[in-house]
């Protein structure tokens, strides 16, 4: 059950303005509301617990190859697909458990900030040590969109909601950007819910005043704190300003997909439906130019989602620990990864259906489907499965299967930045950089 108050329920409490509720909501169509920009879009899709290499690696040469069972659902997009083998997820060598390192360092390219927390499972853990690649790109491009980035998730935080293992993106050290795991809230937040522009204007003007009051209070408090603590509350102040500014500029955007009656966002068996809803909303957010940068998390690091709809009875993480000769478990893991591939393919297909500039939205988008591990039962961070879908307006050729040897993941992140027209020579820890990958 989602408990986010809808703008409608909020408005119902406003008394004086409730009378306008009956006014029909003037829907605009996606194609009209969206500026047909042709600008580049960047999406990271995360799924975890490693892959099954034999079923993941394509067969063939770098330009002529057949996809294995896991990547087969992406075959319709093969000419825009870049399958990258031989990239090691290593960012300097901090201690920590492999999931945490694989997840928390993957997109920052630097070590975790020192693990000073002890979680309920008794693990020390740190937090992302720098900005993640999506935020680096957002900071460099400063897209003129209402949201500088959007973070989506499906049941992220079941096990690790109190730690950084459920939050992929970060603006800087410990400045985590938790995903929105509630499609019904996304609908309200990004697409203005079901209010008319007039109603929304009233609500948002009030919210801006309230937030300004909150900002003033923080501004009085911050100078009295120690310099170490000031940084943290200054980020809070920036967030308040950012929300306040956005509230003054955003109107109902365009015709979003209706998420329908709310489902329990934590029930394991709702996972497929929630994933579908969130992917639709992500595609719509890009289509409506609400943002150009997004991340999407299938659950979290160390996910224990039970893929019951594929026949699994054990949690994903447990399943990924089963031995190589456990054929049934291996088959289920192949099915699990292929299921994610189908979802990635559905996102690509949705983007392909949307005209954008000269071509479709898909033509201008780069999707990076990442994992926090290479293989689940060894916990290796070597040879992580890396797949790019889309070419970022031709910046990447596509239709390639690369077999690198021992290249750093940071090199891939650098390549992604360059494909997105971000002028960088080094990404993350300079010690773990060998230049961009020849994609």
């Amino acid at each position, binding site marked *: 059950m989602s408990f*986010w108050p809808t703008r409608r329920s909020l408005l119902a409490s406003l*008394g004086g303005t409730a009378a306008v509720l009956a006014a029909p909501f003037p829907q605009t169509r996606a194609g009209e509301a969206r500026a047909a920009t042709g600008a580049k879009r960047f999406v990271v899709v995360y799924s975890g617990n490693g892959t099954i290499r034999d079923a993941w690696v394509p067969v063939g040469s770098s330009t002529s190859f057949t996809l294995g069972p896991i990547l087969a659902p992406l075959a319709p997009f093969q000419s825009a697909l870049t399958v990258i083998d031989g990239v090691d997820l290593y960012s300097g060598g901090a201690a*920590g458990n492999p999931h945490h390192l694989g997840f928390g360092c993957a997109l920052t390219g630097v070590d975790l900030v020192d693990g000073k927390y002890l979680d309920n499972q008794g693990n020390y853990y740190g937090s992302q040590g720098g900005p993640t690649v999506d935020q680096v790109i957002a900071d460099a491009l400063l897209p003129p969109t209402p949201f500088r980035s959007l973070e989506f998730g499906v049941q992220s935080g079941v096990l690790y909601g109190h730690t950084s293992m459920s939050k992929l993106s970060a603006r800087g050290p410990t400045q985590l950007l938790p995903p929105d795991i509630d499609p019904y809230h996304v609908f309200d937040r990004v697409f203005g819910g079901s209010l008319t522009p007039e109603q929304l204007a009233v609500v948002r003007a009030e919210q801006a*005043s309230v937030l300004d009051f909150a900002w003033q209070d923080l501004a009085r408090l911050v100078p009295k704190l120690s310099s170490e603590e000031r940084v943290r509350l200054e980020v809070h102040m920036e967030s308040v300003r950012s929300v306040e500014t956005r509230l003054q500029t955003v109107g109902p955007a365009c015709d979003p997909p209706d998420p329908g009656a709310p489902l329990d966002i934590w029930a394991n068996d709702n996972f497929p439906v929630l994933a579908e809803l969130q992917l639709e909303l992500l595609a719509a957010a890009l289509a409506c130019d609400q943002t150009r940068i997004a991340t999407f998390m299938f659950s979290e690091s160390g996910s224990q989602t039970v893929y019951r709809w594929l026949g699994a009875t054990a949690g994903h993480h447990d399943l990924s620990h089963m031995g190589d000769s456990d054929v049934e478990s291996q088959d289920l893991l192949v099915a699990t990864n292929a299921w994610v591939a189908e979802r990635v393919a559905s996102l690509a297909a949705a983007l392909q259906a949307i005209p954008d500039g000269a071509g479709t939205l898909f033509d201008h988008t780069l999707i990076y489907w990442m994992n926090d591990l290479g293989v689940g039962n060894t916990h290796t961070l070597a040879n992580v499965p890396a797949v790019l879908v889309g070419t970022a307006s031709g910046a990447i050729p596509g239709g390639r299967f690369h077999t690198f040897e021992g290249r750093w993941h940071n090199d891939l992140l650098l390549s992604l930045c360059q494909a997105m027209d971000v002028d960088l020579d080094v990404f993350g820890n300079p010690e773990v950089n060998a230049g961009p990958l020849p994609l």
Partner: protein
Amino acid sequence: LCLLTLLFGCDRPEDDAGEPADGFAERSATRRLTVEEWQNTVVDLLGIEVDPSLLPADELTAGFPANVSASLSDLEVEATLAAAESAAAAATSDVELFLGCDPAERACVEAWAGPFLERAWRRPIEADERTSFLALTELGGTPADGVRLAVTGALVSGSFLYRPEVGGTPAGGRVALDGWQVASRLSYLLWRTMPDEILFEAARTEALSSPEQIEEQALRLLADPRGAEALASFHVDWLGLGSLPLLDRVPTPPPPQPLQSHPLLDLDAGLWDQTDAQGLTLPAGTFADGVLDTGAPAISSDTSDTEIYAHHGVELGSTFMLRGSLGADDPDASLGVTFLSGLPASNAWYRLERRPGEIYALESAGTDGACAAESTLSLDVTASIDFEIEVEATFSAVTIEARVWATGAPRPNLPQLVCVDDSFTRLTDGTVGVWSSGPGIKAWGDLLLQTSVPEEPFDFQPVAAAFVDGARSFLETWAADGARLDELLLADWAMANQTLAPYLGVEGVTGESWQRVTLPPERIGLLTQPLFLSVFAKPDQSSPILRGKAVREMLLCDVLLPPPPGVVTIAPDLDPSLTTRERFAEHVADPSCAACHQMIDPIGFGFEAFDQLGVYREFENGNLPVDASGEIVSGGDADGTFVDVRGLVEQLASSDEVRSCIVTHWYRYAAAHLEDPEAGDPALTAALDACTDETCRVEDIVRAIVTSDSFRFRAAHDGDTP
């Protein structure tokens, strides 16, 4: 001590109230209210309950939610705004009642504003703060809107969301907290909510400066029901038990049941829902059970269009078997039996059928699933046939297996026709029916339907909620009884309601309210309550590793580090025919695993008599006997072997090591950081000294912590005004 005072560059400071002081102070971390604290504070401030899922998730520090490190993102700021809006809208829905006067009169709002903001922010309010707060009350369309917006503003402000400990004058490298700050420390530590009016009054009158004054208030708070609730929360946090409702647990399946006879779908008994049976012949009293006799068909038709069907609901996870017979004397007739269909609502179906001039086959329509013949059927299409169709509907697929044979011939050993439909468009319930068209006489025998007993669909959410609430009720009752540490582990009682009782193995409990019950002999204390046992388990099986690790880390305060990066461990293949214990013995067989697992698994084995839902069992994995013996190694005075969970728990309860660990967790909770042996906070030493034998109570620990200097002072920093 001397070194510490040197560090702060001063002599040993004088205590405000003149008592001997330990001279210690540390940097104050600006805590943001936890979800629970926010919720309780809003209840006390506004009398409004807001759903906690509105708020940003807590961040753990030293195992407890404290929110001292992460900053708030845009999304989280919006969450605090949404929560504040929701609370303010509810609180001011009757604004006159809320204010106690008419908001249209400005004097009313002005009289309310200052005292309200003082309570909300838990400190005296500056004139300019009051002015800008009053400015909010003038916004909105009506005076009531203004009050709502002002309440929203108060709740979304840093002074509400955080517990800042700023201001004061540094002396000797440290700053004495003022009475308001001490009041909040006490109320959030012991009640997890804002101070009450007694604490506020003590703050106003500077009656919270001496250790005695603080201790007196602390004892008052502990004795209050809110103190018992907060104590329950402490234990839920300490042991990491609160997440259960988000987890996925399924019961151990009962042994497979044989198919049960379903009431016969007797064609002449009028059990069919609906027919479209033009020309249908229904001769009464001439039917042989389930056997088509061409001389006395159960039902026959000579029209070209006949369709009759009955509804049969199929539960996921169920199996049903359809037996019957049919035949047509003309090879150009079509007929069949539909065993799962959308009819009459939709034209989707799976059926066994015979098309004109063709042989019998499984066919489907309206779904993407495919049906295939395993072998060719060489049957005389004009003879009557017997069939047997088994349908299994699981979460992921519908599987159909059919045997078809000439009436009177032997039943085939294997199904000849198989269809597996795992498409998203598969049918999962529907109707059973018979159908025909074309020339000649078509006939069917009675249909015999047999079903497996449908599994009760298991909804874990209410069970998980009962596990948590039952444990909390136990902890609150235990707290009200004096909160002796050993009783936590050794209690021979628990709290149960009708949902929890069966999982505890207690009979005769009815109703939803909590009542004290005596535990069956196989259970003892908090660690054998279903909550602990199910949190530390896999979705469908027990986990000696998770349970052993929990004891190791939370009761023995050991730190078990993961293998260093780069060490590749190959997971052993697990033999499903073994007991859980036998499968996990692999860890000790491999020397690279044994170093850690010998400390973990033999403790976890002690809980093996309880499955993933905490249900007691003597056998597992069919009929393999459970062995719950084990050993604690490298656990100081807790070491030793045991034969069952009672032995394990008694060893833990009598151990100084465990008692110290519990005290240490109280310190971590109060200080919002791990203990630092180098700094050597005297508060921890005092708490450990106050809790040295089995008579130790939570109260002893709390008194030591709140009367220490680190509870009343903070270190000076560069943001202080000298």
